[in-house]
Each structure stands twice: as structure tokens, then as C-alpha cells.
């Protein structure tokens, strides 16, 4: 007899989207309470992005892949695999939730699986959708060979490759130095690590960063290990390209000297952008965060958006992997409370969460969004990589169409490409606001559109066998 047959007939159908640290801990909490959640995840194996696993048959150890975080990665992977193997949960792998059915979660989730479309019934929904890199465009960033910092890390971890021969990493945030150190250790040739955050900002954030002294120290040591490769307070000017991709990056040092670093690959990223499209479709409200320079979902301390919808992890608050584990437990606890079931006491986790938030605030202050650099982009710069919409076109559209994100989108096609604005919307908001002389918060948030991933029509009409 399978676990699903033994579950009570009235058992609530709970779907968790995302099998990173938040989703795994949420699943664990529900399983401990005797429930059998369905976990939908785009990966072949659970772990999420930061604890992403290579395909079966790869040889490197967890220590080689995850360094100081190897223990945490291993215990999450083992925990999930155990729950999946014993039937304590249902793992819907390599699958994307494209839409939250019309009429909210009650209508079910539309999921694209390798075998076609599936509609998952869903009484309660926990979204642990994580984050992507937060991107600022640069002239030349549409060239092949320019990647996100996250991509550089995934390539190394999940495939054992570097995305170029001579690499420049640029942007800001914890990932910038981490990826640089990991790539160098693996034998890649790093030409420069260019941080747009000035050292003064990093120093000013130190008191908040000391909420997690070990992490703060680790970050400083990584920057020290990079030595002269690491430059803070730079302004990025342009990626020079030929038909095969980058040949160099031009930048201005903190002292105002123009520099040029030759390379054939550039990795870009300014910390993270919460992945919130499904939350929007599930009815969540958003608030503009000046600290994070982006719209973030509104939820209570537990991650509760409404009775039946919960958020956890970087898709709610950008706290990193440890914070995501805590948030995952809290969201599942809220779900149990709302079901009237025995739930663990969240007090200790709520306290831990507060410490994570202090640290995250320090990180956000230390490595800010490069607003001035984006404002100064020349008109010819491609802002939308999908469809080649330029800064000039965007400024013109905002000038005659009005400074509202959704209007500029429908008139100027920014945010309409295949990535659905994931990698251009924050820069676009900055440019529209600059044109109108207002703040990015005032131009509004792009409405979420289903499907949140493009789906081939063939797959969409073909229903997966039940």
C-alpha cells in the first residue's frame, strides 16, 4: 500500500513550489505533522540553486562543491531524497508551475512536466521560488559570453566548466567574490573582479553585518584572497565585443582612472532579485523596498500572505540559504496552524529570522543597486536582452506615454520578451523614473502574466498521463 492510500481521505492537498532550502524545510515540517505534500521543482534533483547538485555520475565531493556549506547541503539533499524515496512526499521534478488557476489556488496549479501538462489540485500553496541575479545592463551585455554571476556558479557546480577562458566578474554582492574565489580555486583564469560598491558603504554596513560575524569575516577574507584582482567602488562603462562575444570591459576606478580589462567572458550581477511572479498570480500584494531597490511581497512574519497562501525563502525576503531554511519551516508552520493541526512552536525560528534580517539589511546596504550607473547609460544601450529594446527607446516611450511601468511595457515592449522582464525590469524602472524625475517606486510594478515560463504549444495541449 502506498503512502497516499494510507493518508486520511480528507487530507489537505498542499503544494510546495521549489525544492531549495526553503521548500525542503517546509516539506519536512509538513511530513513531520503527518501530511504528504507535493513538491514541484524545475531541477532534476532537489537542492535549489545554491545547493544545486550535478547530474548523477559526477565525482566531486560536497566539500569541493559547497565548501564551508557542504554539511548543510548534504543534510538537505539527504533529507529530501529520503522523504521522496519513502513516499512521504510526491516529487514532481523537472516541472514548471506556469499558472495559478483562474480564481486563485482553488482552481489548481497548471504545471508543465516532461510528459505534458498537469493540473495539480491545491488546497494550500507554499511558494519557495527563490531568486535570480539582479541585473543592471551595460553596453554590450547582449553579446554571447556575457552571463549572470549565478550562471557562472551553476556552470562550475553542476557541470564542472567555466563559461570562458579569461573571465571578468562585475557587479556587487556576496556572490561576486564567492564565485570569483570558487572559479579561481577550480583553475579558471580570472582577469578582474569589479565591485561597484564603494568600500565606505561596506564599512558603514559592518555593524549590521556583525549579526553573523562568521559570515562577515568570511566575506572579508574572500576579498582579501583576491588581492589586486578585486577592485571596489568602480563604475562600469562598456563591454567591448566582436562577433564572438566580449573582448574587454572598460571601467573607471574609484580614483577616476579609466581602465580596460581584456576578457572573453563577463559575469554580471548585483545581489539578488526575488522571483515573485507566482506570488503575484496567487493574489499577493507588493511593497516597494528602497533598501532592496525592488518590489517585494507583503506577508506576515511567518510568510502568510492569506489563509492558504504562504511564501518562504529568497522569493519573500532575500536572506540567503540559512534564512531560507528558517523561512521554509515557518511557512509550513503557519500552514499547519491555519489547518488547525498541531504545529511546532515558531518562537526560536522567529528569533533566528530577526538575526538573519539584520545581517541581510547590512548586505543590502553594503552592496547597493548601481542607480547612478544605470541612469547614465547611453541611449544606444540594449536594456531588454530578449528583444533589443534600447535605453533611448525606453526614455522616449516614458516621455510620451507617461511614467508607469505597465504603460511603458505595452507601448515600448520593455518586459514583454521571453524572460518576462526578469532581467530588465529593475533597470527599466530606474530609467523611466529618471526620465520622469520621480522615484522607481512611483512608476508601479509590472503585473504578473501567466504562463510565467514560455511553454511550447504542443506541450501545453498534451495532458500528462495521471
Amino acid at each position, binding site marked *: 500500500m502506498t503512502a497516499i492510500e494510507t493518508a486520511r481521505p480528507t487530507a489537505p492537498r498542499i503544494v510546495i513550489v521549489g525544492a531549495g532550502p526553503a521548500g525542503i524545510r517546509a516539506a519536512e515540517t509538513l511530513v513531520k505533522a503527518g501530511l504528504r505534500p507535493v513538491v514541484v521543482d524545475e531541477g532534476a534533483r532537489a537542492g535549489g540553486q545554491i545547493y544545486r547538485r550535478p547530474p548523477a555520475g559526477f565525482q566531486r565531493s560536497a566539500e569541493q562543491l559547497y565548501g564551508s556549506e557542504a554539511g548543510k547541503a548534504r543534510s538537505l539533499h539527504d533529507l529530501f531524497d529520503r522523504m521522496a524515496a519513502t513516499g512521504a512526499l510526491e516529487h514532481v521534478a523537472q516541472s514548471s508551475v506556469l499558472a495559478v488557476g483562474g480564481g486563485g489556488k482553488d482552481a489548481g496549479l497548471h504545471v508543465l512536466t516532461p510528459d505534458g501538462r498537469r493540473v495539480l489540485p491545491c488546497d494550500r500553496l507554499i511558494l519557495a521560488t527563490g531568486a535570480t541575479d539582479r541585473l543592471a545592463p551595460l553596453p554590450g551585455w547582449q553579446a554571447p559570453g556575457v*552571463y549572470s554571476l549565478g550562471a557562472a556558479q551553476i556552470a562550475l557546480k553542476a557541470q564542472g566548466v*567555466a563559461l570562458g577562458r579569461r573571465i571578468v566578474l562585475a557587479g556587487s554582492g556576496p556572490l561576486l567574490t564567492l564565485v570569483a574565489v570558487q572559479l579561481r580555486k577550480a583553475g579558471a583564469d580570472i582577469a578582474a573582479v569589479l565591485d561597484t560598491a564603494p568600500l565606505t558603504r561596506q564599512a558603514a554596513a559592518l555593524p549590521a553585518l556583525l549579526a553573523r560575524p562568521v559570515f562577515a569575516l568570511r566575506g572579508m577574507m574572500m576579498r582579501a584572497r583576491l588581492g589586486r584582482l578585486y577592485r571596489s567602488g568602480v563604475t562600469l562603462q562598456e563591454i567591448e565585443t566582436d562577433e564572438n562575444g566580449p573582448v574587454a570591459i572598460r571601467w573607471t576606478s574609484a580614483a577616476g582612472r579609466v581602465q580596460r580589462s581584456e576578457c572573453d567572458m563577463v559575469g554580471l550581477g548585483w545581489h539578488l532579485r526575488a522571483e515573485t511572479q507566482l506570488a503575484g498570480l496567487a493574489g499577493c500584494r507588493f511593497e516597494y523596498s528602497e533598501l532592496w531597490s525592488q518590489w517585494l511581497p507583503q506577508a506576515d512574519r511567518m510568510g502568510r500572505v492569506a489563509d492558504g497562501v504562504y511564501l518562504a525563502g529568497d522569493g519573500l525576503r532575500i536572506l540567503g540559504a540559512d534564512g531560507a531554511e528558517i523561512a521554509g519551516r515557518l511557512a509550513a508552520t503557519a500552514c499547519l496552524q491555519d489547518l488547525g493541526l498541531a504545529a511546532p512552536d515558531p518562537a526560536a525560528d522567529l528569533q533566528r529570522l530577526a538575526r538573519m534580517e539584520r545581517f541581510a539589511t547590512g548586505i543590502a546596504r553594503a552592496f547597493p543597486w548601481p542607480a547612478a550607473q544605470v541612469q547614465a547609460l547611453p541611449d544606444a544601450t540594449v536594456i531588454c536582452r530578449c528583444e533589443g529594446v534600447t535605453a533611448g527607446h525606453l526614455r522616449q516611450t516614458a516621455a510620451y506615454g507617461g511614467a508607469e511601468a505597465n504603460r511603458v511595457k505595452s507601448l515600448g515592449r520593455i518586459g514583454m520578451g521571453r524572460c518576462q522582464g526578469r532581467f530588465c525590469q529593475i533597470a527599466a524602472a530606474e530609467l523611466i523614473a529618471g526620465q520622469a524625475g520621480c522615484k522607481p517606486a512611483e512608476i508601479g510594478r509590472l503585473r504578473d502574466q501567466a504562463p510565467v515560463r514560455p511553454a511550447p504549444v504542443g506541450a501545453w495541449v498534451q495532458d500528462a498521463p495521471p
Partner: protein
Amino acid sequence: MTRPDARITRLAETGRTPLWFRLDGREVAALAGDSVLTAVLANAPALRLAEFGTEGRAGFCLMGACQDCWIWQENGPRIRACSTPVAEGMRLLTRTPEAWP
């Protein structure tokens, strides 16, 4: 096994079983466990040409979020290269097939 016009360099896990697939009609090698993106970019500088520009495209996020990495097959639907494992005998194209309307 890194080719001169390859984009990526292999740093680890090079002891895996080799496999063969076709890229623009020529027989090329990859390793079992490679994504289509890794396999193609170990043999070529790009996955396809941009629809709205002249440059090649080689993926951007590697996590299924940007959709920059779609690639054509000789037969059958396009595939998202960063999240699809390469398989023996695949027939991939970095140019739009001519029959495509």
C-alpha cells in the same frame, strides 16, 4: 577536448563517458551528464542567432529564467539548452532550419 572555437572550458569531471551528437551536420563529442548548453558551447561559440539583433546567443542565467538558450533541432521542437541533458545522437542546429515558416 576543448576546441579552439569553443566558448566553455572544462575544469573538472572530465572522466565521464563520451557521447556523440550532430551540430549543424557535423559529428561532435560531449560527455554524459552535459547539458545541451555545455555540449554545444564546448564545440561552438553560440547556440543560435538573436531574433532581434545580429549577435549570437549563448544563454545567460543557466537556471531556466531568461529563455536565452533555446536551440533548434533538425527534427522536433526547440529545446531549452540549459535545462535539457544532451543525448547520444541528438541533431542540433545553431541556425534556424530553412523549412521554418
